[in-house]
């Protein structure tokens, strides 16, 4: 069965310090994994995507994520947090069945940045 678990509902870091948002997944097949960001009153924006080409995936705004199959994890990191990073982040797993995809969003992690 396909599932995704975001281990922290809320993460708070100081500006300029590293960010770590954790995501574990479960999939019967070789999934595609994504991270999305949702700012208030804005649409969901894709940060990055993993599809098996490389385990370390670089995204926009300095974010990156590492796919670890042995740990079934896809954690999102950023070396130095910026105030503009404050938002809701979603880990997403997608599996392809025949010609259709099944997409599961995690419950989200709210990232707060302290000045």
């Amino acid at each position, binding site marked *: 069965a396909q599932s995704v678990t975001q281990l922290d*509902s809320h993460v708070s870091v100081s500006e300029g310090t590293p960010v770590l948002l954790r995501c574990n997944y479960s999939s019967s097949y070789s999934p*595609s994994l*994504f991270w999305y960001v949702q700012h208030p*009153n*804005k*649409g*969901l*924006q*894709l940060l990055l*995507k993993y599809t098996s080409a490389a385990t370390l995936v670089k995204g926009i705004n300095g974010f990156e994520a590492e796919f670890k199959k042995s740990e079934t994890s896809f954690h999102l990191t950023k070396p130095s947090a910026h105030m503009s990073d404050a938002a809701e982040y*979603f880990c*997403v797993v*997608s599996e392809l069945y025949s010609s*259709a*995809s*099944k*997409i*599961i*969003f*995690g*419950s*989200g992690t709210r990232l707060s940045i302290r000045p």
Partner: protein
Amino acid sequence: DAGVTQSPTHLIKTRGQQVTLRCSPKSGHDTVSWYQQALGQGPQFIFQYYEEEERQRGNFPDRFSGHQFPNYSSELNVNALLLGDSALYLCASSLARGGLERAFFGQGTRLTVV
């Protein structure tokens, strides 16, 4: 070029009523997907429309129905509203052969059922 446009932005309905939400896809996109995002939760896939037909459906009751028009715009209809239907409803447009990463999301319609 406008992206994905949803209307209305906010809506208040009474339990038992019916509601219609609208979505205009990004120019050139032919596929529309709808998601329900309850407060504090991630979006849940409702269904997807392509060539005016429902191509894929998530685990939602028949009270949730949709339609796609020849210009690719789409409507989401919910009948017999329940308090639990209160949520942000997101529309995403894409090309038929595009993956999730190629989808563009609208800002959503906030539905409150009282």
